[in-house]
């Protein structure tokens, strides 16, 4: 599962050459090679990883949105790809501002991305441009917020009958 340093180097160099120095950060988190990219380069980079004859990242394991309220670019997306042939995994992250939560869709490449993107739209309000059927999936259709964002606390903060000062968060 762990990628060799040569392979990591190849990926970083390729993305930097093809997509105008798009790699912002790269690190190995536990056993997973993680690359943070500029938003515009994410989908082309995933396409490149898909097409590359040596790597063959042809399986989309999962994706999820992230919300860091203290960051300048608050919202983010995380994609995890798997090359079943070589048993390599890679995580690709990107961040974008909260008032422009737009990402290009990945449904053209992986059919699996359809519901995954709908889920992240539902919970984080990330709009996937080009998605064939972008509507809420798990929450009710007339919900007005995107509940997984950090500004929505789990419990109603106006409640007076509960004292959470000691152990709440």
């Amino acid at each position: 599962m762990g990628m060799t340093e040569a392979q990591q180097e190849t990926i970083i160099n390729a993305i930097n050459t093809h997509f105008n120095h798009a790699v912002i950060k790269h690190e190995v988190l536990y056993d997973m090679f993680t690359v943070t990219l500029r938003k515009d380069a994410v989908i082309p980079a995933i396409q490149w990883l898909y097409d590359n004859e040596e790597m063959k990242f042809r399986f989309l394991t999962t994706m999820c949105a992230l919300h860091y309220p203290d960051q300048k670019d608050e919202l983010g997306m995380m994609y995890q790809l798997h090359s079943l042939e070589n048993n390599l995994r890679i995580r690709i992250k990107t961040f974008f501002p909260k008032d422009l939560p737009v990402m290009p869709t990945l449904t053209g490449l992986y059919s699996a991305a359809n519901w995954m993107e709908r889920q992240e739209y539902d919970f984080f309000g990330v709009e996937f441009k080009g998605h064939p059927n972008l509507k809420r999936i798990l929450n009710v259709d007339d919900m007005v917020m995107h509940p997984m964002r950090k500004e929505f606390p789990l419990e109603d903060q106006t409640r007076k009958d509960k004292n959470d000062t000691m152990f709440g968060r």
Partner: protein
Amino acid sequence: MTQISTNIVDHLAEQKEYTTLNLGPTHPATHGIFQNILKMDGEIIVDAESTVGYIHRAFEKLAERRPYYQITPITDRLNYCSSPINNMGWHMTVEKLIGAKIPKKVDYMRVIVMELARIADHIVCNAVIGVDTGALTGFVYLFQQREFIYEIYEEICGARLTTNIGRIGGFDKDFSPKTWDKIKKFLKEFPLALAEFQSLLERNRIFMDRVIGCGPISAERALNYGFTGPNLRAAGVDYDVRVMTPYSSYEDFDFIIPVGTHGDTYDRFMVRHEEMRQSLRIIQQAMDKMPEGPCHADVPDFYLPEKQDVYNKMEALIYHFKIVMGETDVPVGEVYHSVEGANGELGYYLISDGGRTPFRLHFRRPCFIYYQAYPEMIKGSMLSDAILTMSSMNVIAGELDA
């Protein structure tokens, strides 16, 4: 065999008047609460649209407010047919984050529990395929065996369905002699029941005619749709997390990964059937090779101390208090860990900011990902085949909606 090419349906489309049929949300044949709006041309499905989310319980949000040990009961309720696998997957994720060294014995005990859970899950799926084709007998035989598995869980942790089995770091206690007796009894009796079930369905002409060619999917489409587990293997791709990324000492065991060829209902049935046999082999090997040692790792920050020590030793009391109140510090980091759940790759993506709860926890739920292929798989087939396709995919509502 009742597969009708979509071309014919398209050709006739202009002259036809279609019926809209609601399959679900609560329909006995869907085995859970999810709706499918089918566009029917007589008995043939022209188009389908799935609606999910009826039992959505906001697990990812809930997890952001709970200390790590309190998230285990949430994972129970993902795939509730094989809760122990979910529990173990979560424990292992946290252990990976904190860098705990897990003794071999715990690994082997976990393998036994996980393989029992896999058998229980596959029993539900395969027996229900029988029921949906009209063969209730096999269901009754196998569900008795499933009951024995639940008795083993009960002996280990006291619960049956939503087990909350084990702890972060290992098990709360060693398996009792009675547990071992029950596992041994199960290993002796289950193959007989399975053989009986096999003789009822596997080469049964009526059953074969009914399920061969029903709801097929090609290997490429399955991979593109993110299939994992028995459904992917039935399509002919030998991807199994237990082999590709061994966890919990799976590399110590000798077992075969069965694969199908057509990815139809019969292949899915057969793959699950063979996996039950392989699981039995793994359990037998784990029991034969069971090492000596403690039943938990040395992680006092996460593993509750002995009750006796809590009363008599100050450190134990402090640890006990910190764990129960969820005041343990965890390292900052992000980790992905996946286990081979009964339905496929069950992944946990955990971001920790060092606080008492996860900053973000995302579940990769195999059901949710492969169920989106369902409309494509049933288009052009008969209504009764759609029911069979669904039960053979083993769609579990809890895992679907999280």
